[in-house]
């Protein structure tokens, strides 16, 4: 299966997290993720989005990109953050959650965006 990407942009509000979660769920099902892996994925999406929303400042939208490969889903969450250059610290509970339930986590502070990415590999694909 070739790599494909889904882009999602939602208002920077907790009320729209269900949309980000639902998209992840649907895509993970296509990759034959198990019920439990999907649950982990949903928790990870929630956690990553919430962490960035907590740093949203005046940002109005949150971007979520889903990259599908054969056996894995990579999720990039990012938010506009012109002057707050502190990404998620690695000694936080949130970071611990993300690393425990996904296969790889990374964070970046670009010139005007904060980004959190994680990769989840399905065991069945």
């Amino acid at each position: 299966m070739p790599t494909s990407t889904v882009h999602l942009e939602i208002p920077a509000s907790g009320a729209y997290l269900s949309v980000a979660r639902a998209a992840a769920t649907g895509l993970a099902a296509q990759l034959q993720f198990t019920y439990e892996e999907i649950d982990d994925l949903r928790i990870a999406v929630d956690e990553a989005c919430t962490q960035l929303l907590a740093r949203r400042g005046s940002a109005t939208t949150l971007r979520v990109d889903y990259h599908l490969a054969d056996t894995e889903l990579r999720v990039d969450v990012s938010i506009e953050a012109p002057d707050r250059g502190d990404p998620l610290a690695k000694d936080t509970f949130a970071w611990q959650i993300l690393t425990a339930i996904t296969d790889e986590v990374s964070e970046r502070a670009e010139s005007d965006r904060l980004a959190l990415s994680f990769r989840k590999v399905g065991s069945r694909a």
Partner: protein
Amino acid sequence: MATGVLEGAALAGRGVDRAYAKDLFRRFVEHRDPALREELVGVHLPLVEYLARRFRNRGEPLEDLVQVGTIGLLKAIDRFDLDREVEFSTYATPTIVGELKRHFRDKGWAVRVPRRLQELNLSLNKVVAELSQEVGRSPTIAEIASKVHLTEEEVLEGLDTSNAYAVVSLDAPAGGDDTPSVSEHIGVEDESLEALEYRAALGPLIAGLPERERRILYLRFFGGMTQSQIAARLGISQMHVSRLLNRTLAALRAGLLADEETE
């Protein structure tokens, strides 16, 4: 005024060696020893099981109901006054039933979910548990769909519904005397959680969680155990672990976005 419940409770209480229970109570009242408390719980568990069974056709697994009822039992044990001329089972029954009723009230669907979806979600709970047994691992959406003769789309719809169910207020069981401690002691795990509290500055929130929730949090995020493994270890279903985990995280996150409502 022997209602059906009380009669039945008395019957269930009949299996208990009353002299023995009374002696346990006497010693417990004197020393407040947690080990005695656990023994009292064990002795009166049949009463909880009996009462929990009365609520079992409301869509919650019996094992969950027994756990909820046990919280009521613990409250009753802590408050029971030996000087009262009343059998403990008679005294405890309203407390246990009250706890079960509160459970259903608190766990009411937080979001108005169409009945069709509620039913779908409840039947999915069952199917996921069955399939996990069958295939020896967590099932995929495709497997669930073929088992229940629904499309994958419909199953996913049911999964999303489960989240509405998970949005439950966590302020009810926040520590204090009401927090049950039936499970064995967890020294090492507590140390890690203390480290976590310190690191994450989530102190009061995590300290306020019921022991079981803290434990699940620890096992999943620090102990490297999967939900299924935790479920097996704690003797509850994987779906139940999932619900508790999601609920706990939602409560911990609530503070982060707390300012939203005022915007």
